[in-house]
């Protein structure tokens, strides 16, 4: 699943947004925040997205319950992605990331547990 969606949606965008991502939202964690990096420093990434207003076939959506956030490091094998249950908010922060290039995507959930397809993947360069 991940492989399919990643290949389909994430890959073409990866290079294009890489530089922007680096500039916009990567923050060093802990005492070293704001200070030039050390190889063992970790970083956090905060993401936002827009809620869907319809279901997968275009009907008004009235049972949206929350989101899941997926990410993995570029180059790691498919199926190795990490998942967070975000809850109902459309904003999430991932902490403890090592420096590297990551792909992020989110899905929406309804009250019955039906999960949407992955959003377009967002590549993020984490770290210095």
């Amino acid at each position, binding site marked *: 699943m991940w492989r399919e969606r990643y290949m389909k949606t994430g890959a073409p965008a990866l290079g294009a947004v890489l530089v*922007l991502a680096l500039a*916009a939202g990567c923050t060093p964690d802990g005492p070293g925040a704001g200070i030039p990096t050390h190889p063992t420093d970790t970083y956090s990434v905060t993401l936002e997205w827009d809620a869907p207003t319809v279901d997968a076939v275009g009907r008004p959506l009235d049972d949206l319950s929350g989101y899941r956030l997926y990410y993995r490091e570029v180059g790691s094998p498919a199926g190795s992605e990490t998942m967070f249950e975000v809850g109902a908010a459309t904003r999430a922060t991932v902490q403890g990331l090592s420096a590297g290039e990551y792909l992020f995507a989110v899905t929406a959930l309804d009250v019955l547990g*039906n999960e949407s397809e*992955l959003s377009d993947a*967002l590549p993020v360069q984490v770290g210095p």
Partner: protein
Amino acid sequence: MRPIRFTFVALLILTAGTLARPHAAFDPGKPKDLKATADGPYAVDLDWRRVRGSEGYYIYRDGSRVAETTPTDYRDEGLQPATTYVYRVSAFDDDGDEGDLSDAVQVTTEALPGPSVPDDLVAIAVGPYRIDLVWSPSESESGIEFYRVFRDGNELATTVNTAHEDSNLDPETRYQYRVLAVDILGNESDLSEPASATTEAEPGPPPPRNLTAIAESSTQINLAWNPPAASTHPVQGYNVYREGEPIGFVLSTAFVDTGLSPETTYRYAVSSVDTREVEGELSDEVSATTDAPTDVIPPAAPTGLRLVGG
């Protein structure tokens, strides 16, 4: 001539002897040809041949003098119906001397008419075990004592009323009835015209109680109920109806109706079936609405995923 003279003299002597006694016995001879005729239930008419020299007559009924009369007939009234009386008559002269009694005659007054035949007999089945009878009262001179009720030729009951309730009958059976009246004197009327009725079919068991219908999903409704409180014959199972159509027979007190359409209201009723395979009345209807179809369509994927300042 002597014999003639003797006779004359003898007559004179006899006559003189008679006249000489101031209260000589009156002996005009007893009244003859007494006839007695009953005139209805309460009177007897008497008449007889006149007795020469009599002043009047005494009437005797059953050995007792009941009247005296001058003419040679008499109407004896105030009698009892259907009763036999014995009459004699005697003559008396102006001295009050009475002659011999006539021969006895016997007469019987007419009986009162019996009661009229009960009319308008009607038989009405009241349920499976009872037929009610009703009829018009008979007319009677003496008064009605009671009625005899016959069922299929056999005496069933007597009643002083003009109605009778025949119970403990068999269901779905035809019975024929007739009635006759008996008056106070014991006279019976003829039998009435027959009236028939057929008892109703035996009812089935009572319907189940507390039927409930609860939607289990978008395609299933669960029914449950309690057995009837009491049934003449044991209940062996239940017929389940949806929208008035039978959809199943179960031995238990529950039924699962599947394959239904989502968001649709269905009406159910259940009847009891007893061990004779007789089905009773339907229970009150209950209804339930299936759930909305299960949503298997996920939301659209979120959009606009973006990095924001941490």
